[in-house]
Structure formats: structure tokens, C-alpha cells
């Protein structure tokens, strides 16, 4: 995969999709995210990079309120999605999560058939009027997840019977099937081989036409390949945020430079 081809396909807009203001996250007494301000653009791939344990996953989970499920977790500050505060008491997190989908760090397919895994989201959101439509949605999602060819002959065998990398792509297909506006991906390629990784990266670039994608990654090359914006986290703070090519060529903060040249993390 050539770095340039992806970057050249510029449909970048300057619309702000998500804007975080003074976000603080605590796990009990642990202060995991410290005063993070960031504006994530629509139809853009934004990469979160940083050393392990710096709070990338934590911040990502704030954006679709998955942190609500952790009892000890408290979130302060505002996160606006299309100008609306997602932590407003009037917001139902379930409705929010249909709009902001997520792919998790560890593949977690349902212990059901491959078909049911993908069809579940469209079913509960009423996206298909009949079986034929549902079949079509499932096929399209599996194709976008770059796994269709591998599973098209065994759609009704269990999703848990796939390899780790296939499971992750199934999870991506499952997330895409519900047609979210924002897709959060937590290290989606950590279990994939280079070919599958390239396919997922291509998918991410394609998703950018319609969605805003936020991806956490440990691979600097991946961040450089797929993202237009990069945010560098360190010890719970957002150290630097800017256009990807600028971050990788002339970082402003010495910590960013050390990290991308491999000295911390």
C-alpha cells in the first residue's frame, strides 16, 4: 500500500464533527485523562497515538459513552457531537451509540452465526424491511469488512469459529452494518496480518467518504498511511494534535518527537 495514494484522495472538510472541551476522566482515584481539548473533523480519519496506558482507549470510549458501563468511571467536561452535548442528561446513550459505532481492541463476535453477528445491528435498528434487504445489508457490510470472500460459503457457521484476524474483520463489518456516522476503532489491526491490515486500511479510507473515523493505533506507519489528523497522548494529556504529515515531519513538542522516533513508549 502506497502512502501517497491514500492521502491524495482528499475530500477533507473543515466541518467539526466532535469537539471535546476540558475532558477529565477518573477511574476511582486514577486520573486517566487530564484536561483534553480536541476537535475532530467530519469525513476525516483521526489517529490517536501514544504509549501504552496513556489513555487512548479511555478517551475513545468517552466519545460513545461506553465508559458509562464502568461503575468507577467518571467523566467531566463536555463532548459535543454535531454541536450537541453527548453527556446532556436528555441524551440516551443507546441512541448515541447507534450513531457512533465502535470496534474494540479485542475481537468480540457474538457466539452466534456470522450472518447473525452482522444482521443483529440492522435488525434492532429496523434498517431492513425484509429478509432480502437484510441479506443485502449483511453482504455489503461483510464486503466492506474485507471478509466476504472468506465467509460467503459459511455464513451460518459460528462467528467464534473464525481466526482472530477474521473475527476482527467480522466485528468491523458488524459495526459498519448499522451505518454509524462516526466509527471509533480501537487498534483494529492489532490481530491482523499485513494483507488483512491493508484491506482494513483501504476500508477506513473508503469510510472516510461518508463518516468520521477515529482510530487508535500503535503503528506509526499505519497512522501515517490512513489518517489526516493525528493526536499524540502521553500520560493522560493530549500533547500535540495536528495534520498527520506535519506531526510526523516536524513535531512541535519534544515528547512527540521522542515517541515517533522510538525513544518513549
Amino acid at each position, binding site marked *: 500500500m502506497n502512502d501517497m495514494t491514500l492521502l491524495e484522495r482528499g475530500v477533507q472538510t473543515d466541518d467539526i464533527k466532535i469537539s471535546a472541551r476540558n475532558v477529565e476522566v477518573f477511574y476511582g482515584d486514577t486520573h486517566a485523562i487530564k484536561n483534553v481539548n480536541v476537535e475532530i473533523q467530519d469525513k476525516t480519519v483521526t489517529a490517536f497515538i501514544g504509549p501504552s496506558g496513556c489513555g487512548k482507549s479511555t478517551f475513545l470510549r468517552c466519545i*460513545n459513552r*461506553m465508559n458509562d*458501563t464502568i*461503575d468507577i468511571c467518571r467523566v467531566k467536561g463536555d463532548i459535543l457531537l454535531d454541536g450537541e452535548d453527548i453527556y446532556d442528561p436528555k441524551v440516551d446513550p*443507546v*441512541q448515541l*451509540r*447507534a*450513531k457512533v*459505532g*465502535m*470496534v*474494540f481492541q*479485542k475481537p*468480540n*463476535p*457474538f*457466539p*452466534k452465526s456470522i450472518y447473525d453477528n452482522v444482521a*443483529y*445491528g440492522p435488525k*434492532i*435498528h429496523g434498517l431492513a424491511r425484509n429478509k432480502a434487504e437484510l441479506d443485502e445489508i449483511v453482504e455489503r457490510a461483510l464486503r466492506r469488512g474485507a471478509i466476504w470472500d472468506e465467509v460467503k460459503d459459511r455464513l451460518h457457521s*459460528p462467528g*467464534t469459529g473464525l481466526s482472530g484476524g477474521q473475527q476482527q474483520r467480522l*466485528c468491523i463489518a*458488524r*459495526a459498519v*452494518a*448499522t451505518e454509524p456516522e462516526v466509527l471509533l476503532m480501537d487498534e483494529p489491526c492489532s490481530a491482523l496480518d499485513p494483507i488483512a491490515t491493508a484491506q482494513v486500511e483501504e476500508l477506513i479510507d473508503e469510510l472516510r467518504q461518508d463518516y468520521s473515523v477515529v482510530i487508535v493505533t500503535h503503528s506509526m506507519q499505519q497512522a501515517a498511511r490512513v489518517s489526516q489528523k493525528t493526536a499524540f497522548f502521553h500520560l493522560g494529556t493530549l500533547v500535540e494534535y495536528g495534520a498527520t504529515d506535519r506531526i510526523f515531519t516536524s513535531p512541535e513538542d519534544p515528547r512527540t518527537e521522542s515517541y515517533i522516533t522510538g525513544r518513549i513508549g
Partner: protein
Amino acid sequence: MSDATSGGAVPAAGSRRHGSILQLDARTKKRNAKEARFRAYGLGAIIIGLVFLVTLLTAIVSNGVGAFQQTFIEVPVYLDPQKLDKTGNRDAAEMAKVSTFGYTPLIQQGLLDLVDREGIDAPFEKAGDMKALISASAAAKVRDYVLANPDALGETRGFELLASSRVDGYLKGRVTQESVERDRNISAEHLQLADALREIGAIRKGFNSEFIFGADASESRAEQAGIGVAILGSFFMMLVVLAFSLPIGVAASIYLEEFAPKNRLTDLIEVNISNLAAVPSIVFGILGLAVFIEFAHLPQSAPLVGGLVLTLMTLPTIIISTRASLKAVPPSIRDAALGIGASKMQSVFHHVLPLAAPGILTGTIIGLAQALGETAPLLLIGMVGYIATNYPDGISSGFLDPNSAMPAQIYEWAKRADPAYYERAWGGIIILLVFLLTMNIIAIILRRRFERRW
């Protein structure tokens, strides 16, 4: 650890040299010996357990199997119209006025005539002497037959009647000619006559279906007693337990596990549920007495009340096992469902509950099995000691009319003086165990079926 201190200084990394892998070093030998010892303990424990199990089963089967056999006596009875239908017009209402006392002499005479006809040498002249051989229940059986078939009057019909419990015991070896010396109910001569009748085929042992399907009998008629009515009592009780404890228990567990906030109050509830599981069952019995009978005025000895009391007892078991199986479902499944916009409820009912179902089922069936075998709480609501001689007629009667339950019936029999009842108690235990075994097998089958859907 001891090996690190022996050399004094800690060796530098990478400097350790291993010996040949063909030779076991001291540490490996020690480790292997430890493992071998542990295996021996484990094997020993299992063998001890098996020995107990085999002893128990042998004792139960050898003591109880007799209850499934019963001695019958074939008597030709002349159905004398003079005695049984004095008016002579075969009027059912008139005939019903003749009680079993009218039939007893005819049966006894029939047996005496048989003895004479066969030329058996016996020192008995009066018909009343035959009383010792025939069960007191025989008259009722003949009477029922006559009332159903009035045309049989005036004829001699053969009846297969229950032998008395002493004769039954004699054929099974429980009673001997010596042991009856001081028995007022039967004499050694009677037993000799029984031997003779056995030779001509008038007395024989047969399968005792009445024991499984029949009703309990009074203390003096051990040969007639069956556990069937008590089985029905237990069945209705289990229906009540299942109908209440499964929905309540599962709903409570799902709420506590998935929805309730984790705070002081829920902690307190959690601790109390665990404590309830350890409360002696008789406490639930007295609670049931106070609440269901004295306060709510539900009928005494009724399977409905028994079932409610056992529900109280079973709930903690079901809640604990359900919560454990809900906890065992990996959180990533919940995240996956929530992550694509499923509601909490959808994630629980579509994904978590199906995965927890085998565990919930097993817990429920174990709870039910426990309840099925429970006796103590039934003491206090009057099910123990109730002589279940009548079948309930209909569903509501099954729930509301006084009845006994299997373990209560067994306890009742074990308490009675007649040794014939001892055998019935063991027989009852065999039936109870068969039910428990069946429930466990059902649990295993259901479990398999659910698990096969991954």
C-alpha cells in the same frame, strides 16, 4: 526459596548452566514426587466417595426392592345374594347399604372352602380363622366389584386379593414361624397353611403396582399402602415452586446483576441472599405457617402452601446460581452489543441470557431437586403426618386439598411400628431417587441442547 540462598551471591544473568535433560535433577524429582502424592490423595478421595455411594445404593436397593413385590391370594368367593342384597331387587342404593363388614365373612368362608376342597390339612374350622391370611382391604375390593357388577350376585367369582402383611413378610423372609410365636395376629399354623396354599398356586408374589400408584393406608394395613398420592402431592408442589421461583429468581438475579446500581443497599441485599441460602429449612416452615396459614388463611397441608414454602427455600439457590452464570458471561459480549447501539435490556435478553441459560437451568433443577427432597418445612404446615388416602379430584383440588409429599410419606412410614412399613420406607426412597435422577438427566439433556447452539 532455599536454592537461591545456598550459593550466596545471585549468579549473573545468562551464567546458569543446565545439566543433561536425560538426568532428572533434584528439584524435578521432588516436584514429581509431590505430584504423585497429590494424585494418590485425589484417587483415594474418589475411591472413598465411591465406596460410600455403592454402600448406600446397595443398602437402599436391598432394603427397598421388596416393596415392589407383593403377595396376592386367589380366593373364589361365593357372592351370596341373601347377604349382599337382602331386598333381592338389585337396587344399587340398597346394595350400597351393605358395608365391608358384610363381605368379610364371605371372603373368609371362600378361602376356608378352598382349603377343604384341596384337602389341605389345617387345624382351622371357623371362617374367622382365615382373617390372619387376608388383608383387611380385601372386603372393599370385592364390594367395589359387586357394586359395579350387580349381575355377579349368586355366582362364585375368583378374586385376586392382597395377602395380609404378615403372610407377605413370611414370603419375603421378614417373618418366620418362630418370630410369630407371640404374635396375636397370626400363628405358625397360619404360616404353614400359607406354604400349602403357595404350593397349589393360590398364593403368589407379584409386581406391586399399587405401591407406586396407590394411596397410603392406615397403620394396620401395610400391605395396601402406596406412594402414588404423595407423588401427586409432590408434583403439584413442584409446579408451584417452578411457577414462582423461576421467574422471580431469574428476574431478581438479572436485575441485581445487570441493572442495579452497586451501592450499600444492593450489597446488603446480596449478603442477605447468601445468608438466606444457609437458613435451616425448618425456619422457612415456621415462616410459612405464620404467613400462609395463620395470616393468609390458606388451607393446611395443601400442596399450594407446601410449594410456597419451598419456593422461599429455593429462591436463594436459584438467585445465586443464576447470578453466577450471568457473571460468567464475558463482559466483551455486553460491550459488543452496547457498542452497536443495543439497549441494556436487548444486550441482556439477546446475548447474555442465552449464554447463561444452561447455568440457570442447572441451578433451577438443582433447586427443585432440593425442594423435592425437603421434609422439615412440611412438618410445620401439616403435610407430614397427613394420611394421604385419597386422590385429589381435579386440578384445583390437587393444589388446595390436604395431601402429603414423597419425603413426608417416607418419614411417616419409617415412623410406624409395623416392620412391613420399614420396607415401604426404603421402597419410597427408591422412587424418590428415581425422580431426582430423572430430573438430573433432564438437566443434563437441556444443558447439552442449549450448549450445542454454542
